[in-house]
């Protein structure tokens, strides 16, 4: 019997900024994991990875990462993907800082 397929998302780094990006359902790239397309079928995931890799002028190193469905969208399973989605633990840099400044600007306006 084939092993059950763990749902996946496709992630990469943006070519210009190097920032972590996620492949969305409409074939664009988002900075937020919650906007990634959750791939629950293995064959579909393989095809979507090929689609993603076609965009080598925008992103670098696309790969499939385990994910699970959460209330706001896909969530990481492995700690490495949690760190990629958040930023480093020694400074408030990376996505966690962006999220905070987004929240601040939302408060302001």
């Amino acid at each position, binding site marked *: 019997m084939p092993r059950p397929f763990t749902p996946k998302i496709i992630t990469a780094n943006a070519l*210009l900024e190097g920032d972590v990006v996620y492949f969305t359902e409409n074939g664009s790239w988002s900075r937020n994991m919650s906007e990634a397309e959750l791939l629950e079928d293995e064959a579909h995931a393989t095809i979507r990875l090929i689609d993603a890799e076609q965009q080598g002028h925008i992103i670098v190193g696309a790969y499939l990462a385990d994910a699970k469905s959460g209330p706001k969208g896909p969530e990481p399973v492995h700690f490495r993907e949690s760190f990629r989605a958040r930023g480093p633990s020694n400074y408030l*840099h990376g996505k966690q800082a962006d999220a905070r400044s987004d929240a601040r600007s939302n408060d302001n306006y």
Partner: protein
Amino acid sequence: MYRYDEFDTAFLAKRNAQFRAQVERRIDGSLTEDEFKPLRLMNGLYLQLHAYMLRVAIPYGSLDAQKLRKLAELAERWDKGYGHFTTRQNIQYNWPKLRDVPDMLDALAEVGMHAIQTSGNTIRNVTADHFAGASADEIADPRPYAELIRQWSTDHPEFQFLPRKFKIAITGSPNDRAVTRAHDIGLRMLEREGQTGFEVIVGGGLGRTPMVGKVIRDFVPENELLPYLEAVVHVYNQHGRRDNKYKARIKITVHENGLDTIREQVEAAFERTRAEFEGVDERVIARIRARFRAPDLVGGETQAYQDARLDPVFRSWADTNLAEHKDPDHAIVTISLKAHGATPGDATAGQMRVMAELAEQYGYDELRISHQQNVILPHVRKSDLPAVFEELKAAGLATANIGLASDIIACPGMDYCALATARSIPVAQQLAQRVEDLRIEHEVGPLQIKISGCINACGHHHVGHIGILGLDRGGVETYQITLGGDATETAEIGQRTGPGFSYEEIVPAIERLMLAYLEVREDETETFLEAYRRLGVAPFKEALYGPEKQRDAA
């Protein structure tokens, strides 16, 4: 400090223009990532977990104020206001944008700096004793030879596509502060019958197969150093395994072929290279020496220093962070980048400027970066030490912990590195903070803790008195402990204690090791490493895992 000539300046300008064009071609789509990657790596540019990372070479760890100010400027203009000093005496910027990197390299070139061969399967930045040219115990300053090796290895046509990366370290002192036995080639300066030369150690390395280097030749005269190195790298380039990345380093080549076989082949190649290089070393080393500006030390009374020592805070710092200078009126100052709870090796742009200022005002315009991720002012007049201390204190740079438990080496780990399997920085931060809270580090005394976030061992965990290796075990961060490692001339690889600890358990486990040492040591003169060597692993294992009987039952 070595001054670059017109040839170096023109070379850097050309190389940077070339890389700028390569970046443009990557962005406009003419180059694929597969084509671009080896080109960016040759220029020190990595793509890490959250962003690009630019690794800038600090050849043999030597800087002056102008260079350090430039590093501060890069941190502010193109990064997030800080830089990270590494275990190979380099600096890394964690947040550059691809488009900005050519500008960063041009800015570096203004002060003769670059990122060439800080990555890739080439001969990397040569590292050296960070006390070179200053310490009381050295035969001679090894840096002119390091510069000789840098010039020889940069863009060396035969050695641009080696089987794997190749690291050379050099020391001019019998006390090895450059970890020469854990390098592909380690060079230890010797004097024999009035002639200066080097003991050549080959095949050392850490990583997944840690090995202590072996002496391949007990003496190479200084004027034959380059042809001998060329012969070693030539033989490695032919025999190094390109079929398996994990077996590609020279340590495996030596291990698989045997030291004697490799030595024979090196000697045969040396016959040829020696003829080809006839006289080159002498001419070039003379030219390099002429461009190395040694400071004209101005001595003077040391009373101000003696008076300042009456202040216990100053005295504590002086006892920990100063080393003996060859001139009795001077001292070597190590500036700790290991404030308790801070990221090991990080300095803000402001701190870099303070250190540059101190070097200019009190340190003959010289600075060094150590592989222990600290900054050195190699020549400070003793009477100036109280003033230096006050300014360091104001900049948060006066932590008195050099060589102690909180002076931890840590690689970037999974907070930045794409290869990492677990985090190292927060473990180092928490451990240093714990040591400070317990106020035990001066009682514990000399203790080197080194943390790596993966098997590649950038944090030198194998040669830490206490080594910590972060791994991914079934999707959970797990930390293995090794004990008894030694990074000096008596180099040894540490031994694993047993099962690993979780992220939450690792700091309390290290605390138990320190407390166990205080229990079992003969007296306060016996260091952690000496106690371990005398008693073996048993008491430390018990501290980590409980009494043996209980362990068997479990």
